[in-house]
């Protein structure tokens, strides 16, 4: 299969260093403290955050910092072939750990002693890059839940096919067998690398090139999420300024504000 055409376009018409279209919406689930729907091309991920709240299992309680619990799941219809993915699925366990470690490094857990933060991510539609989309969705949901964090965390992957570094691989490109470098960074802390995963043979020079591309992609993702958060916050501020009588009567809804709802149009 030809992944990059002679004129330098990829299978889905993108240039090698182009991200897929991103879309994000915050506060889509009423019952969660924070939630977000994040899309990257055809990959759609829903994340929900519950907490900070008291630790459920007393034995896990930490008097110095918060406990972060995370779960990643894929909908049975999210991939091309329907597959029942068990909860103990090894791939899911691995991705869960990658997401948990990434957000644990981002949340200021020492500010929330004796508490617990639950982060659940559900892939609704998968087209490559679910790991990165999940981290981005989890970050947005955490921000919507007003969990204190040291910085934003933005994630993006890059690959290398036909001697060309490619940003943000889709499923077809991912299945092309080339290396895939998944990266998550703290963009405002000097692009500090939080997550880096790469598991195939790759020359060091090429690796550096691909990593640089992935980090550049992360920065673009971060800028997009920053914009989304700004708009969301401005929306909340406008709502408060308008003195929403209904919200006041209902007791302010705990300040979370689920002004936007999950709608078929969001998909």
């Amino acid at each position, binding site marked *: 299969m030809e992944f990059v055409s002679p004129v330098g376009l990829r299978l889905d018409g993108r240039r090698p260093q182009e991200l897929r279209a991103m879309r994000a919406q915050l506060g889509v*689930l009423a*019952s969660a403290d924070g939630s977000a729907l994040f899309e990257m091309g055809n990959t759609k991920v829903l*994340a929900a955050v519950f907490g900070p709240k008291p630790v459920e299992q007393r034995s896990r309680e930490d008097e110095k910092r918060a406990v972060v619990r995370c779960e990643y799941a894929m*909908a*049975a219809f999210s991939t091309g072939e329907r597959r029942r993915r068990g909860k103990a699925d090894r791939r899911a366990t691995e991705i869960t750990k990658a997401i948990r470690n990434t957000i644990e490094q981002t949340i200021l857990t020492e500010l929330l002693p004796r508490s617990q933060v639950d982060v*659940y991510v*559900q892939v609704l539609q998968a087209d490559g890059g679910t790991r990165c989309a999940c981290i981005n969705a989890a970050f947005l949901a955490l921000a919507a839940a007003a969990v204190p964090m040291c910085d934003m965390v933005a994630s993006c992957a890059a690959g290398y096919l036909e001697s060309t570094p490619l940003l943000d691989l889709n499923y077809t490109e991912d299945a092309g067998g080339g290396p895939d470098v998944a990266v998550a960074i703290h963009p405002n802390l000097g692009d500090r690398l939080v997550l880096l995963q790469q598991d195939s043979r790759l020359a060091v020079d090429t690796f550096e090139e691909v990593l640089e591309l992935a980090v550049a992609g992360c920065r673009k993702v971060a800028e997009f999420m920053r914009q989304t958060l700004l708009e969301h916050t401005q929306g909340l501020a406008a709502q408060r300024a308008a003195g929403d009588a209904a919200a*006041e009567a209902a007791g*302010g809804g705990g300040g979370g504000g689920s002004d936007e709802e999950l709608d*078929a149009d969001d998909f």
Partner: protein
Amino acid sequence: MAAAAAAPPPGGELQAEAFQRLYPDQYLAQFVTRGLRPDGRPLALARPTSIGLGVVSTADASALVKLGSTSVLAGVKAEVMPAPADTPDRGRLTLQVEMAPLCSADARPGRPSEAAAVLTQQLTSLLDAGGVVDGRQLCIDPGRVAWAVYVDVYVLDADGSLHDACLLAVLAALSSLQLHAVTVDDAGRVTKADSDAAAAAASSGQPGGAPAMRRLQLGCQPVSLTCGVYRGQLLIDPTAEEEPLLDATLTATLDEQGGVLGLYKAGGSATSSHERLLQCLEAAKLRGKEVRDLLWQALDAADTAALS
């Protein structure tokens, strides 16, 4: 709001929010005696309902149903399988309800919840009993190949009356499901007709070209309504906040002719009188009409979108 929370008003008067937390039962009672619900609805009104079709492009059919803030996503995958040995002329439909841990603050990750298993069982038996999908429609070549249709229902936000929302999502997804035309050659190889090519053939009016996509003919359209009994009053479509306080809940499922397909009342301290039962059925009948109209609109909109 923040200032009020920081400094409690003198006289020890409770804030509405605190009162709701401490005395949820009395809180609800205050509303119900005035003929209202905490979310502002009258007692006999269901929450605003919306149906979105085709929201997940990797699924063969999908539907996102919202009932107030209860959100349910159903996705259908159709796969070709060898015909079952015991029923060679029928395909198979499998339904699974999953309550993802993100659906509510009480849900726990790990083992599937009891509620999800109960819903799966209830909906499966409703589909069977109502003859919603005739297994013979899922036959491709008797004795050789048949369709295996998987309906996966994900509860994204659990805010009460899940049975109604899940059933509607399943019905909507199945109504919009189109099965590919499939050809089986002598060697038993199965090829799916290309939907694009067939659509082109259909639009050019090519004679002899069998339609590539086939809608399922549903045997009936079951729609359910959950009614709660609270201090002698009937609350239609209870929310998650109201559900644990109810004396009893009753879920009635009716088909489009008003025939009863299922009634479910699990325990509860209030015994249902005959009169109460009829009241619920009447409400369910009205609700069914409303919901089927919504479904028609959604299917129409999806068809128009597909044509343009």
